[in-house]
């Protein structure tokens, strides 16, 4: 077949796994934006379908949780900070953003097995679509801050914009770990259960029920918790709510952002390298 070379033949199922993986995944997002938009819509509509209160649950859930923790806290330690309920509600919202992103990215391949078996597109799209819908729902639940700002007579300031920044950072800190673990979850669902435990345990190890200031008062405690990459986003959101730019130590900020970037690079590389062998297990 001498004339066979006239048409350029390309290998099917493009893949790249290099240090540039995170960059190429961003270009994939741009190229498939219509698909991602549709997947996010499916996810968000699905989460609250068949419920009377619908989206109100995004606000109601953290609010109710905070009430419970508030009572728990005044039972353990009397005389709390008057703003304590607000600290808890912010902690719950930011932490659940991290937890939901982590869980949905880890299960992004296993949940979409039927689609994966029928059509090829870069599977990282599933991961980013679930990140998108979680960020959207978290932003919706931040509406709860408006009545709180009025109730506590705190003015509206530009620093409130640090709250969505903190939400993005919380999601970003979860993405890399999720990408790293998603292929392994195809082979062994133990990963999924382990992640659920990490999210539950991390709830107590992160400043959800406590604050960075409380840790500072304990001296040594702050030296330990500063290594938790989620301390910074939660503190950032709390300070932003009060209308101040955070005074969180720079090394803590670097730990948090550094964790996010490093995990994102490693996670994207691992995901791109192993997604092809992982889908055979689905």
């Amino acid at each position, binding site marked *: 077949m001498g004339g066979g070379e006239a048409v350029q*033949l390309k290998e099917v199922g493009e*893949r790249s796994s290099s240090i540039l993986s995170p960059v190429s995944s961003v270009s994939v997002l741009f190229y498939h934006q219509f698909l991602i938009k549709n997947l996010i819509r*499916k996810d968000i509509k699905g989460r609250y379908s068949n419920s009377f209160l619908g989206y109100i649950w995004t606000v109601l859930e953290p609010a109710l949780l905070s009430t419970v923790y508030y009572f728990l806290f005044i039972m353990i330690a009397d005389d709390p900070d008057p703003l304590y309920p607000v600290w808890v509600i912010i902690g719950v919202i930011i932490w659940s953003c991290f937890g939901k992103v982590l869980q949905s990215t880890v299960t992004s391949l296993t949940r979409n097995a039927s689609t994966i078996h029928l059509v*090829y597109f870069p599977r990282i799209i599933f991961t980013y679509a679930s990140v998108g819908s979680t960020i959207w729902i978290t932003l919706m639940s931040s509406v709860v801050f408006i009545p709180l700002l009025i109730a506590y007579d705190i003015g509206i300031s530009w620093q409130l914009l640090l709250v969505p920044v903190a939400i993005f950072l919380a999601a970003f800190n979860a993405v890399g770990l999720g990408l790293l673990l998603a292929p392994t979850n195809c082979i062994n669902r133990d990963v999924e259960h382990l992640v659920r435990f990490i999210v539950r345990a991390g709830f107590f190890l992160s400043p959800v029920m406590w604050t960075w200031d409380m840790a500072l008062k304990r001296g040594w405690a702050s030296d330990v918790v500063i290594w938790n990459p989620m301390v910074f986003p939660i503190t950032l959101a709390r300070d932003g709510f009060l209308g101040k730019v955070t005074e969180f130590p720079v090394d803590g900020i670097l730990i948090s952002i550094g964790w996010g970037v490093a995990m994102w690079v490693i996670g994207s590389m691992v995901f791109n390298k192993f997604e092809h062998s992982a889908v055979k*297990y689905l």
Partner: protein
Amino acid sequence: MSEISILVDNVSLSFPKKKSILNIIKRRETSDFLALEEITFTVNQGEVLGIIGRNGCGKSTLLRVIAGIFSPDHGQCKSSGKISLLAGLGTGFTGHLTGRQNALLYGSILGHDEKIMTSLMPEIISFSELENFIDEPLRTYSAGMKARLGLAVASALNPEILLIDEVLGVGDPVFKEKSKKKILEMVAGAGTVVLVSHSFGLMTSICDRVIHMGEGKIMFDGDPKEAIASYYESEEKRK
């Protein structure tokens, strides 16, 4: 002198049986299930190729390798253009979205962008005959209605290379006829077609060439009638 559209070169693929995290790093284990074994063939531009064989012989896996869903352990698979796999119509359909939203979602899963999907919508609605239901949630649809919507979206595709995996015959007899006609239209319109089916009548009438597969290997590659004869022969031997 015709140009090559699909090149499958010495492709082997195995599915892991043991579930261990370490397997993901290792290339292959001896205990693995060998689904495709050293498959080599080419499909020329404009050719309609059929693949037959008993269940579990690797036909669908082979289509999925060509579509890029599974990457081969050994060998390579190349193509000259945009490939679409027609299988399991209505993948990703969800009950709480409306028919229209599901059509957009399915279309985007199949690789269409927004502009094309909006322009295709009228055609999709009229072909699926769902004018009065398109903005109702999909959970209110009957199975036949869902299948119609799935086929309507899928058949609006216009790929250079079309792979079909047993999608003929959905819905009521009238729609079945209509869908068969539509798929034949797609076959005629597409540059190159690879078709997996059990309906030998159809195969002999539309395929230029048929491959008979057995246990992950090519048993026969050539004239449709001879391929079907080879299939019956090997079935006879099994008894």
